[in-house]
C-alpha cells in the first residue's frame, strides 16, 4: 500500500549502486563514455535530426544509437514503436540491469526524470494533425508513445519486472530528483531496490526554445569561463540500479559506489534565472551534505551544473564559494556539459554516472575548452585530463522553474 506505508526503519539502510548504464553523444555504454569523459572529448556537430537552417545556433551533441537494439523481452512490434528517447533509455537501463545482475521478475519501482519524454513524436503528431488532419495513420501510437509513462512501462516490460513507474519532471533537475527520490524510497523502507535515472532527446521545439532565449552558445560551451556565452544542448540517458547495502551483500553483488546524500530545494527567484547569489544552490548543497554527514572538506570533486550561461555559472560559482569556504581554493570543479551538452531531464542522471566513473577509475573529467576563469570562481576548474584520489563527489543539478538538487556519492572500497 502507498498509504499506510510500512514502518520507517529505525536506522535508514545504506544505499549502494550496483549497476549503471549510460548513453551520450560520446558513445553507448560505460567504457566509451568513461574514455571520452576522461579525455575531455567534445561531441558536438551540426544537428541532423531536424532543420536548423533558420536557427541562430546549429550544433548540438547528438547520440549515435546502435543500428539494432540489444535483445529484450519486448516483441518486435513494440520495439519498432520505440522512439529515440525510449531507445536511449532502454539501452541505458539494460546496461545498468545487467551490471547489477538483477533477474527478471519481482516488484521494482522505476523512477525516471525527463523534461520532454517523446517530444519529437508529439511534434510529428502536431505536424500531421495540422497539415493532413484527415490522415490518422500512426497518430494513436504517437499519442501513447509520446508519453514518458509509456516509455517507462516499456523499460519494465523489456527487462521483465513490474512495479510502480514514477515520472519526475522538474526540468533540468529531473534526473537528479529521480535518483534522490529513489534513495529516499529505499531509506524509508518502501523498497529494497529501485531502478532510476533520467533521459531526454533533442527535439525541434526544445532546441528552438533555448535558441529563442539566446541561451545557446554561438561559439563553444565553456562553463565557468569568463568569456562563456551560453549552453549547448545534448541528448542521452543514464540509469542506475540502487539497492540496500544488505541486499547487495546478500547477492554478492559488485558495488560501484554508495549514494550518501541528497538535497532538494526550490528557488523562487525567477522562472528561468537562478538567484544571483546562488542561495538555493547553496541550500541544496548544504542539505545534501547534512544528509550525508559530510562537510566540504570531505568532498574531492564537484560535478557542477555548469551550463555555460553567464547567469547560471556566476550564481553557482558564488554558491560553491559560500558553501565550500576555505576548501574552495583547492576543490576541483568541472562541468561535463562542456563535452556532451546539457541533457536537461537526463543531465542529473548522466552526471551521476560520470561521478561513479570518477570514483571507480580515480580520475577527474576535464573541460578542455576552458581558458580564463570567471572572477566569481575561486576554485580550480579541471582543465586537463588527470588521475586523482577521489573518495567523495558532489553533483549539482538546477532546473528551469527553480528546483535545485544535489547528490553526493562515496567511493566503495
Amino acid at each position, binding site marked *: *500500500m*502507498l*498509504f*499506510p*506505508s510500512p*514502518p*520507517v526503519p529505525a536506522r535508514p539502510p545504506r544505499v549502494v549502486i550496483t549497476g549503471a548504464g549510460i548513453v551520450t553523444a560520446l558513445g553507448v555504454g560505460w567504457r566509451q563514455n568513461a574514455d571520452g569523459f576522461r579525455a575531455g572529448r567534445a561531441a558536438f556537430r551540426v544537428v541532423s535530426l531536424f532543420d536548423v537552417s*533558420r*536557427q541562430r545556433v546549429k550544433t548540438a551533441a547528438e547520440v549515435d544509437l546502435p543500428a539494432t537494439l540489444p535483445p529484450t523481452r519486448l516483441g518486435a512490434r513494440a520495439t519498432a514503436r520505440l522512439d529515440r528517447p525510449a531507445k536511449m533509455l532502454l539501452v541505458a537501463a539494460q546496461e545498468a540491469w545487467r551490471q547489477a545482475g538483477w533477474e527478471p521478475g519481482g516488484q521494482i519501482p522505476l523512477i525516471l526524470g*525527463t*523534461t520532454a*519524454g517523446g517530444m519529437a513524436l*508529439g*511534434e510529428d503528431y*502536431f*505536424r500531421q*494533425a495540422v497539415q493532413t*488532419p*484527415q490522415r490518422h495513420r500512426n*497518430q*494513436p501510437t504517437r*499519442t*501513447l508513445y509520446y*508519453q*514518458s*509513462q*509509456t516509455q517507462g*512501462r516499456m523499460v*519494465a*516490460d523489456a527487462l521483465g519486472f*513490474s*512495479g*510502480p513507474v*514514477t*515520472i*519526475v*519532471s*522538474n*526540468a533540468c533537475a529531473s534526473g537528479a530528483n529521480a535518483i534522490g*527520490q529513489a534513495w*529516499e524510497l529505499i531509506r*524509508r523502507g518502501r523498497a529494497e531496490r529501485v531502478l532510476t535515472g533520467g533521459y531526454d532527446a533533442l527535439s*525541434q*521545439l526544445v532546441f*528552438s*526554445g*533555448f*535558441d*529563442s*532565449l*539566446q541561451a545557446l552558445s554561438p561559439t563553444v560551451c565553456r562553463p565557468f569561463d569568463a568569456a562563456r556565452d551560453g549552453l549547448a544542448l545534448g541528448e542521452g540517458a543514464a540509469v542506475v540500479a540502487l539497492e540496500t547495502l544488505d541486499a547487495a551483500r546478500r547477492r554478492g553483488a559488485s558495488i560501484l559506489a554508495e549514494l550518501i546524500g541528497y538535497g*532538494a*530545494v*526550490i528557488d*523562487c527567484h525567477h*522562472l528561468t534565472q537562478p538567484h544571483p547569489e546562488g542561495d538555493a544552490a547553496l541550500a541544496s548543497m548544504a542539505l545534501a551534505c547534512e544528509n550525508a554527514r559530510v562537510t566540504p572538506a570531505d568532498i574531492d570533486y564537484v560535478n557542477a551544473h555548469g551550463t555555460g550561461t553567464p547567469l547560471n555559472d556566476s550564481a553557482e560559482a558564488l554558491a560553491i564559494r559560500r558553501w565550500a569556504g576555505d576548501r574552495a581554493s583547492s576543490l576541483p570543479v568541472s562541468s561535463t556539459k562542456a563535452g556532451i551538452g546539457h541533457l536537461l531531464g537526463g543531465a542529473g542522471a548522466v552526471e551521476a554516472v560520470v561521478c561513479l566513473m570518477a570514483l571507480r577509475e580515480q580520475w577527474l573529467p576535464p573541460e578542455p575548452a576552458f581558458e580564463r576563469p570567471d572572477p566569481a570562481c575561486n576554485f580550480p576548474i579541471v582543465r586537463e585530463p588527470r588521475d586523482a584520489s577521489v573518495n567523495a563527489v558532489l553533483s549539482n543539478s538546477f532546473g*528551469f*522553474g*527553480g*528546483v535545485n538538487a544535489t547528490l553526493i556519492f562515496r567511493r566503495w572500497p
Partner: protein
Amino acid sequence: MSGVYVCGLGAVSPAGWDVAALGKVLQSQLPVPRQPLARPDPAKPLQACPVPPPLTRPSFLGHPRLRRASPITQYAAAAALEALGKLAANRPPGDRLGLVVCLQSGCVQYSARFFEETLRDPLTASPLVFPETVFAAPASHLATLLGNVTLASTLVGDPACFLQGVALAVDWLEEQRANACLVIGAEESHWLRADALWHFQRSSVMSSGAGALCLSLEPGLSLGVELNAITDAHTFSTDLNRTRAALAMRSQLPSGAPTEVLFDSQDDSPQLDAPERAAWGDWPGRRLSLKRILGEGLMAAAAWQCVAACDEVARGAAPAANVSLVGCNQQAIGARFARSHSQP
C-alpha cells in the same frame, strides 16, 4: 505512522471556480454545457466543456509571475489558494509548505503555440512563450505566488498519478520536511489534446481545470476528513492488463457499505470503462462518475474525484468515500477518505 488529515480543498472546473460549484453540479447530475472545438479538421466533431470565466478577476493574476501564465497555471493557482484558505489565515511563523503538481498533458496551449511559431520561422519564435511550455512551470509560478514553499515537485503520468502525488506529499509530511502539502492536478484545453483523445474514445468531451488537496498531520486543521488508504500502484504491463490492475486495486480497499460513496473514473466508453465496471460491480453504495458530468479532464478529473470525495465526507453526506483511478496508459490506484476521528 501519523494520521494524515485533509485540511483544505480547491477546485476549478467546468462547473465554476470553487468546490461549492463542483459540488452543486455533481448533486444535479446534469452534464455541464459543451461546445464545439475549433480545430484544423472541421469534419471531426470535437467537443469541450469550457471552464466558465470567473465571476470576478482573481487578484493573483496581478502577481508579476502570473500575468503571462497559461490557463493551467491560473487554474492550479485558484485551486491551491482555495485549498489553502483556512491554513493561510492561521499560518504559523516558519510554516513550510510542500507542493506536488501532477499533470498529464500539461502546458499544451503554449507548447502548441511555440511549436507553431517555430515551424513558421524559429527566428521569430517568442522567448516569452517557451519557458511556459515546461511541465515544471506551473509549480514554479505557484511556489513563488505562495511564498512559503520549501519543496516542490512535478509528476507526470496518467490520471492515477494524482494519488502517487498524494503519497509523495504524505512522505514529505511524515519526514517533517513540510508542515502542510498541497497536491494539485491540472490540465488545460486545446484542440490537440481533444484530437489525441478522439483516437481512443470518439465520444470523449475534453474538459480542463484543476483540483487541490491540502494535507497536514495536524488534526486541528482537518476538515473532518482523513486519508484512510492509498492502494499500491498497479502498473499495466504485458502480464497485467487494465482489468487485472483495476481488480488488484479494488482488492486492496474495504468492501464498502451502503452509506459510502464511490467516485470512479468512468466516461461512457464501453471499452475504456470495462475494467472499472468489473472491479466495482459489487459496490454496495452510491456511485458517481464525474467525467460523465464534467468531461474528460485527465489529471484535473482525478483531482476533482478526490476533492469531491473529501467534500462528501466533510459535509457529512457519507462516512467514507472511495476513489477509483484507472488510468489510460499507466496504472490503477485507488484511495479511501473517511470521517476523521479528530474533529476540528
